């Protein structure tokens, strides 16, 4: 049996751990609040750009009536042979099963499409590390054509390759960087390097309502309706756990009511009047579609960041609770050991006195 000193030392160490996990939980709660605010602030723009595109596609045929060609190459659908998968994971660990779940869904997607060539674009450090461990990085060869231009030519070795990663993008989420990514995806689609783009991320509606989704970004089939092709809902047990953690950290459980603002935003560009279009339809589509794709990406990332903080908060709350349980158990054991020692001493004294 351990002696009192050992137990006391162990209790002290667990107490220290509890202090750290508690602090981490509070930090995550604060960050979650900020992430929620940011997600909320990004909503009007996303809603507006969706509704204006929607109304534009309703007014203007996506096929040009004169030439019969598409107004924008992003509307073109091809047979899905080469697929781009964007994996949005977290940058840090200590977030329970958050990263594992994202990666599990991504791997399921990959193994579910064995006959397709898949390019992976990893956002978030954890996802990048894992993806790189499993799949080779795409290699490029420099090629010079007759006019002396050098261009990068992709050399595909395996059917699944990592084409790029964006570490640190989530730490300071900036629209400019997200837009760069969106532009690169669009240019790959337009140049027919990929036939479709999917994104795996954690959707976040509120602390208790979040799910893992696989969403199709490209081709654009229906504007304004997320094309979710797969989703994993959390279990009711996980939900309860998250609710408990949120309550103790003082986070609102219900999502903030934005119905009025959303309605207002939805009206943007959809008024039932004939607009004067300053630019021809092709130009408007050219300007709007990249913005739309980038706003979908930005939306996915803000949600994922919020979900990550929520997951970390829940995980750290569980860790603090476990630490408290452990301290209780050790304290009980320590008291027992101490009492046993005292009893033993008394018996010794009493029997010593009796012997005299």
């Amino acid at each position, binding site marked *: 049996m351990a002696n009192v000193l050992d137990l006391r030392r162990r209790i002290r160490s667990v107490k220290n751990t509890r202090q750290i996990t508690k602090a981490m939980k509070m930090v995550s709660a604060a960050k979650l609040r900020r992430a929620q605010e940011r997600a909320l602030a990004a909503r009007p723009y996303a809603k507006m750009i969706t509704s*204006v595109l929607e109304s534009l596609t309703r007014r203007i045929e996506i096929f040009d009536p004169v030439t019969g060609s598409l107004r924008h190459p992003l509307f073109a659908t091809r047979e899905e042979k080469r697929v781009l998968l964007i994996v949005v994971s977290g940058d840090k660990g200590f977030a329970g099963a958050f990263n594992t779940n994202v990666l599990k869904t991504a791997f399921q997607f990959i193994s579910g499409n064995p006959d397709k060539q898949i390019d992976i674009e990893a956002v978030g450090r954890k996802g990048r590390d894992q993806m790189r461990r499993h799949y080779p990085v795409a290699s490029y060869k420099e090629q010079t054509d007759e006019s002396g231009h050098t261009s990068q030519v992709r050399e595909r070795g395996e059917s699944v390759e990592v084409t790029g990663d964006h570490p640190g993008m989530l730490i300071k989420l900036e*629209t*400019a960087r997200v837009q760069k990514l969106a532009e690169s995806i669009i240019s790959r689609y337009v140049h027919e390097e990929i036939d479709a783009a999917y994104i795996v991320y954690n959707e976040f509606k509120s602390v208790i309502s979040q799910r893992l989704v696989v969403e199709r970004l490209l081709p654009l089939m229906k504007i304004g309706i997320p094309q979710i092709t797969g989703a994993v809902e959390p279990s009711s047990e996980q939900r309860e756990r998250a609710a408990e953690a949120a309550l103790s950290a003082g986070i609102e459980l219900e999502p903030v009511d934005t119905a009025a603002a959303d309605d207002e935003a939805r009206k*943007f560009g959809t008024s039932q*009047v004939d607009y004067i279009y*300053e*630019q021809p339809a092709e*130009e*408007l589509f050219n300007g709007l579609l990249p*913005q739309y794709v980038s706003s979908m990406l930005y939306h996915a990332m803000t949600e994922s960041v919020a979900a990550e903080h929520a997951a970390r908060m829940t995980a750290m709350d569980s860790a603090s609770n476990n630490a408290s349980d452990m301290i209780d158990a050790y304290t009980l054991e320590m008291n027992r050991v101490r009492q046993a020692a005292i009893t033993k001493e008394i018996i010794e004294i009493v029997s010593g006195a009796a012997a005299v």
Partner: protein
Amino acid sequence: MADETNQLRVRLVTPERTLFDHAADAVELPAKNGYVEVLYGHAPLMAELGAGDVTLHGGPDGDQHYNVSWGFAEVLPDRVTILASDALKPEEIDLPRAEQQLDRGLNMWKEAGESPEAFDEALRVIAEAEAKMATAAEKH
């Protein structure tokens, strides 16, 4: 539907935040092919924006300038909504950074060679930087 005030409801929204949501007498927009001034009762219009200043006249705090780069504006008789890719208040403009951006744009322009896309991209960067510097200069 005219009311006594004849004011427009003007909103300026970026992907990250809503900068402005107030009533104003008139608003100037930097449309891609030139500035447009919108007063109450303007015909419905949808325009792509370039880089430049959005100026609000007769807002709650007097005239206000915002630097806007790229986006869209919807004009309805009583309402103007500006969807900007990026928008800054004049005091938020980082002048050294704008100068760096201009240099970068000029370099891109020099290196663009014969690719029209690279030229367009360079011109965009230059226009954005110049618009930012112009807004900042106006302020000081």
